């Protein structure tokens, strides 16, 4: 079978997965902003498209590398054709499982599906030695830790905001004063993550010191701009029955920023689920060996980013529309805290090359805010369902991919 055949399969299913990620996960990334009315649906779609793409291309490399070569033990699985078959089988298995889950309405994670499928393919191709269990254990640990870290950051962030701003003697004055600093904080983290060890593909690899300097500069500019916009307007008289309206309005603006931040982090982490295996197929095809080039090429990342954007334009729209009709008890201050926590956690994991579930991290962050007594009611049944889907996805994707690998090996090798 010509290797080009596998490239074609990889391309088709890689794109399919990317589109699915765009269609389904974007609702989770932007849903809280639309639900709290910080963004209209149209704005959310646009912001998601831009920042998902940027995140995928600028920071998506590390995680893609892990998905491409971290799970499969490339020492054992050194035959390029076999490697390509495992990658294609994993893509196919993940796509099939995801399609079933979407049809049934199960809250499954693309990340869990693709990692489980890769492990299954590796074992089917060359036994237990075909998988680097150490890395897999590391990934598994990050799946447990990421919601916990998200919860911890969300809890802390909201506690600080509520004690310093919302529960202050003059909440409106404090909110007005704090907004530029919070803007600066978000810009700082965002720019730092873009510059430090990012942008390698654009040959703009900054050292930590240089990246910190530039991030601080960006934060200063953002903060000053926000200060100009916020402080220019007079505070106005406090309205009866609406003492917190102004405060929440300020957070509405901040939440727009964190929504973009979440989209960026999501793009950076989740593009790998689709594009990691595809990138593996491509490099095996081009170099004729499994251990060829090390870096993930930017145009492959761009394909993944484009796939996500196409997916969210085609179907994400409809999912978001449904969400736009739902109203939540989530106010912008809560949304800001949860989104900031989730995006930061996801972005740090992306930098470390750990593929985690954005949705799980966000759920963890929201629960963190809930633990700080911030949310009227959280339905823990949903958490149970998500956990159940998590437990089911791994073995199903594993088995499905193993079977597909065996079948393909039988036919194509």
């Amino acid at each position, binding site marked *: 079978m010509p290797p080009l055949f596998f490239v074609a399969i990889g391309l088709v299913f890689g794109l399919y997965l990317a589109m699915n990620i765009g*269609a*389904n996960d974007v*609702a*989770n990334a932007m*849903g*809280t902003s639309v*639900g709290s*009315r910080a963004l209209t649906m149209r704005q959310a779609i646009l912001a998601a498209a831009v920042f998902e793409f940027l995140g995928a291309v600028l920071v998506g490399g590390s995680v893609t590398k892990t998905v491409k070569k971290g799970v499969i033990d490339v020492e054992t699985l050194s035959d390029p054709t076999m490697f390509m078959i495992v990658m294609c089988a994993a893509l196919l298995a993940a796509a099939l499982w995801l399609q079933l889950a*979407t*049809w*049934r*309405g*199960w*809250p499954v994670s693309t990340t869990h599906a693709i990692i489980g499928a890769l492990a299954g393919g590796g074992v089917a191709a060359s036994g237990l030695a075909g998988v680097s269990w150490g890395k897999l254990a590391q990934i598994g640990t990050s799946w447990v830790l990421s919601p916990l870290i998200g919860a911890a950051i969300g809890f802390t962030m*909201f506690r600080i905001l*509520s*004690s310093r701003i*919302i*529960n*202050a*003697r003059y909440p409106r004055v404090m909110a007005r004063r704090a907004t530029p600093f919070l803007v600066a904080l978000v810009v700082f983290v965002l720019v730092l993550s873009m510059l430090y060890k990012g942008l390698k593909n654009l040959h703009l690899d900054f050292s930590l010191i240089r990246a910190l300097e530039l991030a601080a500069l960006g934060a200063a500019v953002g903060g000053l701009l926000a200060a100009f916009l916020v402080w220019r307007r007079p505070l106005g008289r406090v*309205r*009866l*029955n*609406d*003492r*917190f309206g102004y405060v*929440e309005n300020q957070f509405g603006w901040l939440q727009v920023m964190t929504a973009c931040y979440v989209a960026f982090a999501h793009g950076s982490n989740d593009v790998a689920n689709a594009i990691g295996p595809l990138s593996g197929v491509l490099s095996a095809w081009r170099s004729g060996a499994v251990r060829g080039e090390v870096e993930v090429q930017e145009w492959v990342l761009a394909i993944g980013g484009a796939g996500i954007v196409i997916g969210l334009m085609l*179907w994400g729209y*409809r*999912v978001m529309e*449904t*969400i736009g*009709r*739902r*109203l*939540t*008890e*989530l*106010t912008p201050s809560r949304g800001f805290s949860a989104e900031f926590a989730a995006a930061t956690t996801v972005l740090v994991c992306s930098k470390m090359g750990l593929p985690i579930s954005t*949705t799980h991290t*966000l*759920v963890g962050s*929201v*629960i963190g805010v*809930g633990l*700080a*007594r*911030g*949310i*009227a*009611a*959280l*339905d*823990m*049944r*949903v*958490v*149970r*369902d998500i956990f159940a889907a998590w437990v089911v996805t791994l073995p199903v994707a594993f088995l499905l991919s193993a079977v597909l690998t065996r079948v393909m090996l039988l036919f194509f090798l």
Partner: protein
Amino acid sequence: MAGSACGRSGIRCVLFVCIENSCRSQMAEALARMIGGDRIEAFSAGSRPSGRVNPRAIEVMAEAGCDLSAHRSKSLAGIPPRRYDAVISMGCGDACPAVPARIREDWDIPDPATTDIGEVRAVRDLLRAKVESLLARLLDGQEAGGGETSTAWPPMMHGRMVRSGDAGREKMRTILDLFGQSPFRALQRHMDTVLEPVDQVRPFFEAFLAGDAEKARTIRKRILKLEHEADLVKNEIRDHLPKSYFLPVDRRDLLALLHQQDRLADLCEDIVIVATLKADLTLPRDLHPAILEEVDLSLEACVLAREVIERLDELLETSFGGEEAARVIELIDRVSAKEHEVDKHAYTTARQLFVREQELGAVDLGLWQKLLQLVGRLANAAESIGDHVRLMLSR
């Protein structure tokens, strides 16, 4: 509040205000009626009414299937004085009305005073979206679309967000499924509902003491009906507070609070039943003021308790802490103080009654003592409501 459907379970009153009451507020009122059905009472007015409805507005509303031609442009002074759930202005600047309401918003919608019908259409569509969102909020996230109406607390739609279109993808579970229906707003609505029979207690005693049996019977009937309505709201809340909900307050405190609120309605029922047990129960005229005073004091405690419950919104915003919590504690202290006053007054009134034992007769005396007790218990329940909120704050 009396005489209006506003505040009764499920029905919400909305007032839309713009400058001329000829275009924007007229369309918003009509849209609210269309979308909200019989769960919404909508009104509109202008700060400087032009006296006529904009013909373009009539035209575009006719496109949306709504006839505005019989509407008149009204002044703010002419609107019925009620307790509005929401007052919405359209960007009227300094002429914003001073109408009390739970929700006050300025939508800042441009005045399409031009004759360009496309612009008026755009304003209509903008208004439709905003009215939809407002009504959904007012009716606790109840789906605002369609003509289907129900006053029931909205059923949760766990993972089933199926609408028209490709249902498969819309069945997707999203993070928003995590957010449950706020029990606090439901509690506020329940409190509004139980205060309705409480409001009838004073008119009942007035009629009863004056010997107007006919009127007393009407009010008695009304109270029994309102008590039943309150029970329904209470049951809905209980049914929709699954154990899986993670709340910022202890679930038991919440249910205990609900129980105390419901006791207010139950006590009203007990009062009218005890009062009408004996057909010829009367009271010497000079004792009337003491009884009515006792009723008034108890009602004041209930109104204070309602104020506490209305603060739940703010308490949720401040995660039950900070300055707001301190202010609510002060309010709760006032409820307690009022309850104490009620007790003292009940004691003196009871003694007054015993002095007239011969004149009243043992049976009448017993019944009046019982009534006095029941009225006092209204204040006790109000105090309990405050205490349960206090528990929530001290966690």
